[in-house]
Every structure is written in structure tokens, then in C-alpha cells.
């Protein structure tokens, strides 16, 4: 096989030759993936295919054994999670990581404030008035976009799973991220909630023009919102293409959709 590896793109997140091993287990195997700004990219695959591991490698939460991660043309492979976030990469979690003891408004505001604090000692301690205003504005905008403004004063731990997913999305949207990784945002949501989530994602794309990379199990959601889809199986990329291509692909059907379609 003569693999011609394309150079990393400069318009968003670009992963080249990524491999992640845990002991003898190869969770991700030589993966190439692009998630440019302005595109809603899907990443699908059966359980254990390495999707969340890929996300963790992108945001710097694990250590890949090989490969590189680029953001807007810069190699960020050696940077920690905060530094990558500062360069425009945000994410949500499959197992939600909310600030449970804080209110929804504080959760969302912290999404912006964390980036302002960065790694500067003084800026971690005090917020200027200007920053405070900016933070509140960003939080209000993000909550509005996700339709959770009415929950602002509720404590995050007191919400339903569907509401919590939206809080997490709003928190990420409050940050100045240009690429967002969304890890199974519809898991734990019922049919209506998932449909609403799809509406919100489309609004986000239309209003913010960010790049979204979506790990998702709900195929109807993927088929509806995604422009371009990657399919992983056992850590390997087995297919990539538009949603129409996916529907026609025999390989994908065999590996993933198989049971339902046959």
C-alpha cells in the first residue's frame, strides 16, 4: 500500500498518523482526520472503536504513541489541554464534566472565564470589570443559543440529562473556540430532545461558523446534520466521505449498520 499522507490542513483541526496504545491494546491505529472550521464533521463507529480516545488525544488528555495533532497549521502535539484550548479547541464529554455545585449561569460563564484565566497567576486571581462584562455577555449569548436561559439560576446537578447536555454545550460555546469536539451529545436523550439538539447544532453552525467534530451513535442525527463523516472500527479508519457515500458503502454497512439493514 502506498499511502500518500496529505500535509496537515491549516483551516482547523488536523490529525496525522495518530496511534494510541494502552499496553498491548491498540485503541487508535494510524488515523488521519480533518475537522475544518465551518464544517460539521461526524466521527462514528461501534463501541470501543476508539472515538473518545481520539478526542482525548486531540485535546491533550492522553499521550499518543505516534502521530501529530495540528490546529490551524500549528503542531500542538506537545501542548497540554489548557494550551490547546487557548488555541481554539474546545470539547464536551460523553461522561459529562459539569461543575455540579455551581449554577447553570456560573457553569457557562466559567467556560469563558477559564480561558481568560489561562496560566497567568494574576489573571487567575482577579477579573477586570471589562472581562466580567465580556464573560456575562458570552454566557448569556450561549445560554440563549442553547435555549436554557430559563435555567440560569438552577444548580447544574439538579437538572435532567438532556438539560445537562445543553449546559455543557453552552459552556463550550461561551468560550472563544473555533473547533468544538462533541462527544456523544445525544446519549441519554430521548427522541424529541435529540431532534432539538440537532436544531441547536444547525443554529450554531449558521450563527457561529465554527467547526464541529461530532462523535455520535444516533445515525439519524449524524445523517441529518453532518457534512462529512469518518467511520472507525477497532481503531482503524475504514471509511470517509459524505453522508450519501456512507449510506451506499458496503464496508460501513457490514461493520456498523449491519445488524439493522440486513
Amino acid at each position, binding site marked *: 500500500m502506498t499511502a500518500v499522507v496529505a500535509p496537515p490542513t491549516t483551516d482547523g483541526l488536523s490529525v496525522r498518523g495518530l496511534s494510541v496504545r494502552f499496553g498491548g491494546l491498540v485503541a487508535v491505529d494510524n488515523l488521519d482526520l480533518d475537522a475544518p472550521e465551518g464544517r460539521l464533521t461526524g466521527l462514528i463507529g461501534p463501541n470501543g472503536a476508539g472515538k473518545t480516545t481520539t478526542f482525548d488525544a486531540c*485535546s491533550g*488528555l492522553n499521550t499518543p504513541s505516534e502521530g501529530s495533532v495540528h490546529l490551524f497549521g500549528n503542531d500542538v502535539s506537545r501542548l*497540554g*489541554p*489548557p494550551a490547546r*484550548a*487557548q488555541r481554539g479547541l*474546545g*470539547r464536551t*464529554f460523553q*461522561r459529562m*464534566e*459539569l*461543575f*455540579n*455545585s*455551581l449554577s447553570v449561569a*456560573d457553569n457557562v*460563564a*466559567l*467556560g469563558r*472565564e*477559564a*480561558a*481568560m*484565566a*489561562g*496560566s*497567568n*497567576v494574576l*489573571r*487567575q*486571581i*482577579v*477579573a477586570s470589570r471589562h472581562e466580567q462584562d465580556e464573560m456575562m455577555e458570552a454566557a448569556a449569548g450561549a445560554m440563549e443559543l442553547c435555549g436554557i436561559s430559563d435555567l440560569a439560576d438552577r*444548580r447544574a*446537578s439538579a437538572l435532567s440529562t438532556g438539560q445537562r447536555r445543553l449546559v455543557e454545550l453552552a*459552556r*463550550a460555546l461561551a*468560550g472563544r473556540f473555533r473547533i468544538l469536539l462533541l462527544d456523544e451529545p445525544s446519549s441519554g436523550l430521548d427522541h424529541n430532545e435529540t431532534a432539538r439538539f440537532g436544531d441547536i447544532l444547525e443554529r450554531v453552525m449558521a450563527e457561529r461558523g465554527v467547526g464541529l467534530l461530532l462523535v455520535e451513535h444516533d445515525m439519524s442525527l449524524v445523517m441529518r446534520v453532518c457534512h462529512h463523516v469518518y467511520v472507525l472500527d477497532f481503531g482503524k479508519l475504514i471509511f470517509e466521505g459524505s453522508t450519501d457515500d456512507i449510506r451506499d458503502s458496503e464496508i460501513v454497512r457490514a461493520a456498523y449498520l449491519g445488524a439493522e439493514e440486513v
Partner: protein
Amino acid sequence: MLERLARALRGVSLAMSIVATIGILLAIQGVAVMRYGPRTLTMPAYLPTRSIRMVGVNVGLDQIITFLVALVAATGLYLFFRYSRMGVAMRGVVDDPDLLALNRVSPVRARRWAWFLGSSFAALSGVLIAPVLGLEAFVLTLLVVQAFGAAAIGRFSSLPLTYLGGLAVGVGASLSTKFVASVPSLRGLPSSFPFLVLFVTLLVLPRRLLVDSGAAVASPPPHTHSLPPRVARGGLVLGAGVALLVPWIVGARLPVYTNAVIYVLVFLSLRLLVRTSNQVSLAHAGFAAVGAAAFAHFTHAGLPWPLALLAAGLVGVPVGAVVAIPAIRMSGLYLAIATFGFGILLEQLIYPQSFMFGANGSLAVPRPHVSGVDLASDRGFYYVALTVAVLASVVVAWIHRSRLGRLLRGLADSPTALATHGADTKVTLVIVFCISAFLAALAGALFGALTGSIDGTPFGSFSSIYWLAILAVAGNGLIAPAFVAGIFIAVVPAYITNHTIIDLFPVMFGMSAIGNAIMSTRGSPFAGWLQGASIRSAGRADRSPVRDRMIIQEVAA
């Protein structure tokens, strides 16, 4: 019984589970001290002490037997975990109890057996070591911390490596005895050697081995009740009034109250670290000791009193930063052990140095002098301490409302989310440990000024444990619990002359720390009532326990 407790503690926040562990430790120790007295009991050597010559060294027969028992125990455990059904089940219970239950193995039974095995091995080693070390609750507890050093060498998973690690630690400690004979300033090295090993091993171990399995448990938030603002404000005014009047009421017992006010600093510092940020430090007594020593030196060097106080606090800061290093790498139990090890290291290696408490082990510490104002008397100094405590309270309250406060609360709930949104949590951790150490060092300095001279004894590493347990039972508010805890630790014992009750104190605090930790997750009406009650009493913090006692005394007189 311990298994029940462990089950009740599942899902409790990390800091609270440490608090509960400490509670058990204090309670059992307290009972042991009450029953057998604080002195070391000696135990007759029950094994043959005849020695034989082996490869040119005299070896006691008892030592050989001990060695063999340990070897047999280690081999037995190794085989047990590897091949027996229960052993495998025990390993499974760590990873996923629910999955185990699905496979028709009761996780409760597995845990019960694990506790049973653990306790019997601990008891066995106690029996073996008692003739060598003597029986004393504190020494034997330290032994457990040392054993963690060996376990760390075994990467917490390999029994053969742990066995070797244990041997290495023991041999190393003995060898260092010879080494330090020529270097007097390292006198404390042999006894602190195991803690050095522990601290260093925990620092160099790969981080993934230090992931507390409890860390993944999402803890429900504490049920905090807040007082209506008017009540809170009323309580504050009342408390302030009482605090200002204390010197005119309590007479000769005033230093006790000054002590309580100084303890407020300690508890504020712990509050910020443990409750707000979900971190643990069992090295706080060390921070205070460093502050006390630095303050003594600065005042001797002629620095004006307030400047020296500030500088003493600042000296605590780098020490706090050092303790932040393990906090960056680990959490929960490992952090508690690492910081406790660090506290013991400070106590044994650093306290005896002449740059700490002087060549005689004790330094004089002056009180402030301002011409025309009486600050050096007991009454004057009470107000000095009160001013510092109030200033610190204001600062802590301000921190809570500031960006740092929000970051710290975020850190307690989800450090991962904080990091992936761009905040460098390492910096946040270092900041909070530095602030905490600063406050504790201030307290140390004031302790010195209160008593007039300072040495290492009040800052024993076990004080840190005691402080943490008391904070845990002092309620959920922000500032008030620090005052409550200060009164608990300093004032209440001064009014109780009965020694049995004093001895009971650690047991009581231990028990209530456990209770509080368990309650911290339960939404039961009882917990609500308990916390409500603690907050209600916190509202009249400075008043109730003290005043009630005073009234009783007056009546008695």
C-alpha cells in the same frame, strides 16, 4: 464493620473520604490511648532471641522468624490473588463491583474478606513488630504510612516488588544510621528515611498509577443551606460584639481565647483548600512551624513586628508550593499520604535544624511594641490576633467571590473541564496551596508571639490530622466554621478539667468526622437537620458554646 463503613463512603467527595479515614484513625487511636495510656507499653520478647552467626553477621533467631513469616505471608498473598476465586474477585471489586455482582460473586463478600485479610495481616505485623518498637498507637500508625512507601515501590500492584521494597526501605534506614553518624545535621534521616522514600516514589511514579479509583465517582453536591441575609447579618454583628468584649469577660483565661482566634487562621486556610478546592493537605502543621521559626528569626534580625509577620507568612509560600507538586500529580488518598509523609519529613529532618528553632531547639518570640498603645499585654495581643483573623476572613471571603474562587470551585468539581476550557489547573493548584500555606504560616508566627517562645512540639505532624478532623465537624459555612473550630480546639478543652473527657476528644472528633463525611452525600432528613443545626450554631458562632459554659461556671461558683 469497616466494610460497612467503606460502603457507606462510596460516592463521597475525595476530601471527605480522607476526612472519614482520618476520623477512624483518630477514634481508634483515642480509644487505645484511653485504654492503655499514652506511654509506650513494652512487650516481652516472646520469640527466641538467641542469635546465630550467618555470613559473618550476628542474626537473632527472632529476626529470622520474622523474616520468614513475612516471606510466607507475601508468597501466600501472591498465590491467593493469582489463583483463588476469592482473590480474583477481590481484584475485580476494585475495577467494577457491579459487573462482579452480575457474575454471581457478591462484591460485599469480597470486600468483607479484603478487609478481614487486611486487618489480620496488619495485626500480624503489629504482633511481630511490637517487641522491637514497643506498643504505642502513634508509632504504629506511622508504620502504616511507611508501609505505603514499600507499596509505592511495588507500584501498588506487584506483591513481590512490594516485599523487596519493604526490605529496601528497612535496610536503607539502617544504613543511613551509619551514614549520618558522621553528619550530625542529618540526625533525623534514619527515622524519616521511609517517608523520604514514600514522598519521592510518589513523585516519580507514572501518573496513571496514581489515579484514585474513587476519582471517577461523580459526587452529588453537598446540601448547603444558607441563612436568610438578615439572620446572617444579625449573627455577624452579635458575633463581632462578643468577640470584641471577650477580654472584659473571661478574665485570666484570655490567652486561651487568643489561641482560638489564631486557630481561626489555620482553619480558614484548611477551609479554602479542603472544602472549596477538594484538595487535601496533612502538612499544615509544617507550614505553621515554618512560619513560627521564620517569624522568630525576622524579629531577632530587627524587622518591625508587622513586617516580620508578613514576611513569615511569605516564607510559608514556597513550602506550600512544594506541597502543590504532589497535588498536581495525584489526588485523594495518595495526596493525603504524600502530604502527610512530607509533614513527617519536615518534622523529623527540618525541625531539629538550627535554622528552624535555633541550636537549643527553642526561640524567644516578642509581641508587638508600639509606644503609647498597649499591644503586648494579653488584652492588647488578643486584639492584634483578632485583627489579623478578621482581615484573613475578609480576604478569604473576597477570594470566594473573585475569579479565583470560581476557578477553585470548578477545580473541586471537574479539573478536566477547567483545563479543556483553557485554565491551567496547575497554576490554580499552586496558588491555592500558597495562599493556604501563607495563612497557616501567619498562624504559626502568632502562636509563637502568644506563648513568648517557640519550639517544634506544638507542630507535630499529627496536629495536621487533628485539625482537619475538627474542621470537618465544624459546619459548612465559609467563615463561621473557622471560628467554631477555633473554639472547639482551644477554648472548650480549657474549661473541662476532667481528664477522661479530654482524652475522649479525639474519639469524639473522629467519630463525628466519619459521620459528617457520610452525611455529606446523603439527602436524608437527618443530614439536613444536622447541617441545618450546624449552620444555625455557626450563625451564633462566637457566642453559644463559650457563653453557655461561662454561665454554667458562674452558677457553679
